[in-house]
């Protein structure tokens, strides 16, 4: 039951923007941003959570990009318990991406969990989401995670693709998972070969 309400992340925009799997393999980058700037990819800095003032940036970014509402306690729960598993992407002073995770024992394994991931609409397709996720996974690997789990909306193609390319598999379909009645997928990245078959304790 608890898992069911974990990270009810759903997406309002974006997902509609690509209608199919059909995409040129050599993808086009975020041309607009590159044009307006210095013809090159903007310099993005990455850091982890340091202090309270950043909390509002996290909240702001996520509230903007995700439809599901989170209470302030949810942010605090994650970020203050696992500050080292919260990473930011910044362009100058501007927070343009964030990932929020946790890492806990779960049914005899150590399970990492990606609760929220969001990249500012103007900074998409620059591998910021990928970089943030990789940083989080690296840290969780250091923390001896056996697997990493997350949920995302069935129709959230950008997120699904991002996670596909990282090696996640879509383990389960969760019917009517979100408050808006949409289905979700549970994704998992296995970092180790299973030592034993875990019972399904989700």
């Amino acid at each position, binding site marked *: 039951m608890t898992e069911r309400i974990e990270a009810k992340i759903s997406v309002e925009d974006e997902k509609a923007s690509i209608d199919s799997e059909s995409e040129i*393999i050599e993808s086009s980058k975020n041309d607009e941003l590159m044009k307006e700037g210095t013809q090159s990819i903007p310099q993005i800095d990455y850091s982890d959570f340091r202090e309270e003032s950043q909390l509002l940036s996290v909240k702001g970014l996520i509230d903007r990009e995700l439809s599901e509402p989170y209470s302030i306690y949810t942010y605090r729960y994650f970020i203050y318990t696992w500050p080292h598993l919260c990473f930011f992407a910044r362009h100058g002073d501007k927070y343009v991406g964030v990932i929020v995770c946790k890492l806990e024992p779960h049914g005899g394994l150590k399970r990492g969990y990606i609760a929220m991931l969001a990249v500012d609409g103007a900074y998409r397709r620059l591998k910021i989401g990928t970089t943030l996720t990789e940083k989080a996974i690296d840290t969780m690997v250091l923390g001896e995670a056996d697997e990493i789990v997350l949920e995302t909306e069935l129709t959230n193609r950008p997120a699904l693709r991002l996670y596909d390319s990282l090696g996640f598999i879509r383990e389960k379909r969760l019917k009517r998972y979100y408050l808006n009645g949409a289905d979700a997928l549970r994704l998992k990245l296995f970092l180790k070969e299973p030592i034993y078959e875990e019972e399904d304790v989700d």
Partner: protein
Amino acid sequence: MKGVGEPTDFQAAAAATATAAAAATAGCAAAKAHGETPADVENCETDQDWNVGNCGFMDTDWQQKIRSNSAAEDITQFPLYAWVNVTKDFHNACSELVPGELAQDMLFGLFEAMSAIEIMDPKMDVGMGFDKYDLPPPSFEAAVTMGAIKLDDLTSAELIGIFDALFACVVSWLEGNSMDQVLFTCLYLHAPSKIKDKALRVFCTSVRNLIVIIKNIIVTAGVNEEEDFQLYGNSALLAAEKAQPSAITGLLKEVEDELVRKCKQLTAPEDLMAVVHRLRFMRHLYQAIYQVELLSVAESAEEGVNEIYKSLNVAAELLPLIRRTIDRGTQPVEGSDTPNPMGFSPRIHDRSQPPTFPRSIKIRERPASFQFLEEMVGRFKYACKVIRHRDYYSALNFFIEYSRKSGQCILSRSFLQNLFTTGIRLVHGKQSMKQFLKYSVQIFNSPPVLNPKHPVANDPKVQQHLDTFFRYCINMNTFTQFIRICGFNRARQRDKLARLIENFDTIQVDAARLDSLMNLMANERALEGNELHATALKHSTHFSTWVLYNCFRAMLIFLMSGFELELYAVHEFLYIYWYPYEFLVGFLVSALTRTENILLAQEEYAEHQSKIQVNGGGGGAGKNRKPAKPKKNKKQQRPYRQEIVYYHALLSLCGGMYKAMGALTKDGRIRLPTSKFDNEEIRYNRRFSPFVPLTSPPPVSYAEFKNIRDHMMRPSVEELYAFAAKHFDQARNVLESMQNPEQEMLDLLQIARTNFVVMNVLAQGHQKGLKRQPEFDFSRHSYFPIIKLK
């Protein structure tokens, strides 16, 4: 002020915003200090054992008091609520914290954090939907006093409006919404006995009784999950008036008759007739559903189900009439969330919701609701056919098919489960499941030992072995479980199948043991000179074949369900299609072929025997039977022919997809995981992990798969595309050879044809410059996509 004073084991602490959980007392005090509305402070009372469950579900007298305005004043009265002002202590405690530090109670975990509602946040606080001039939602009594709802002299239009809105509520409830948020927003349902208008009273009473019966059916079937159906609702409301399930149809009939008499005196009876049609529809729908409950005490399954079917037929005939007269009823006001202008109070249960953010409910529109009901009645009718399926093989087929067509509706699924289990009980009586399974194996591949007419069936030793085996099957529950699983919603079936498959292993072992015991006994009997028994027992593979066949089917459904549920990324298609192509479908074909061969051999033997008997001067009866028999046998020789042909088509389609994926990958058209975290071996092992515990078929390691794939991918891209095309062409041939193909076969045929063309296009080197990943369109069939180049 627990928590705040001793934040030792928590890294985190709160800013001045008091956490709801940390100290309920403190929270209340703070809220009070800030002058928030009394209702927000409800949590306070449960100070000692605060939990989320309490705060959301408080629908006690006390809460009702709060709601009525006068009582709300009382809340601040000392000593009635024993308020203690802790503001100062609270601020003192806060001063010890640094900004951002969080006082967290042990019990305040993620669940609580996620469930906490930020007051005044428009996304979370239901109260934000009200403005301060809004009146509190009226209760039944209040609405009556205010004159907002009529209890008597309702016009036909008003009745139709309320009835149709209630049907819409029933449908929305069956779609998984909470009873409180849909059905019990209808104030009339709160106290039907107080309604003076007979038609309305009886209708509302019927709805209440229907709710109870539907709940029973769903609970008995036990194939519901939290996302399908909410069992819990305001039971106090439901209990307020006694259920009287057996009286309902009589009551409905009575009002109907009265109204029909009235109609005869009217010059324009159309509106009133529309009311009658709704009452009548309710009666037959009710009758059908109620009879499912009664079926367990019926004389015979056929009779009971026939009655149900008749009621459903009448209900189905009434629906078009009802749909045509929707506009004769009062209609919901545009933009309002009330399903009907009179009799509903959508907000009345806002505060009795489960302890998470309230789901926003959209009650179905009327035409869509009747469409749902029409389809549901159709599904019920279809479900009635299950009693014709007396053996496991055909029952399982029926369930698989039913799930594909009706898998979304919880009541339809439960309806079928109930009909089936009661049907089995009625047909097979005592130890019905065991009898059913025995009968099923007999029908499936007719082992002589299960043929009551064969003398070997009376051999006590044989009987003992059989008994042990079937008892074991029942204890393991594997077979019955398979059927039950088909009753769950499609998303849940997959996990359950994974566990089922593991269970098959022990049954397989046992079945193999039984077969070998039979073979041993054959030798014994042969030595004793008992040719007849020896022949009957010899070469037994009946039981293991039966078990294996069912296991293979579970495996195939498990694997392919991942496509329907969109669980496979495109780059995974290759190994998923490979397995059925290389192994699974072939196993199924050979299990069925073997079964047909066994049947054939037995029939030949039987024929041979009877010939001997006839020639030996047997009775006249044998002579009479003889000419009829071979004819019948001819037809029976290949009972699985159609299914085998289907599997042949499946084999070619899987082969086509497997090689197509190989070709596309080699051609650089498939997006592959690029990350250092990706590990194909782990993914492969995970995808096939439910098969690992099985002895048969033996698991196939990743290394073996890789070898086979490497070999497959050796030819040039063009050749690979051509190979794939060839498979699709074969599939096309097989499918075209089918007589009277069902829609599914036609869909598969379309897929085979299109993919054949696409593969040929690619084989000829078109679109070489543009390496796009094609689109895989599963809209025709859930197992196989049409490959589309853009």
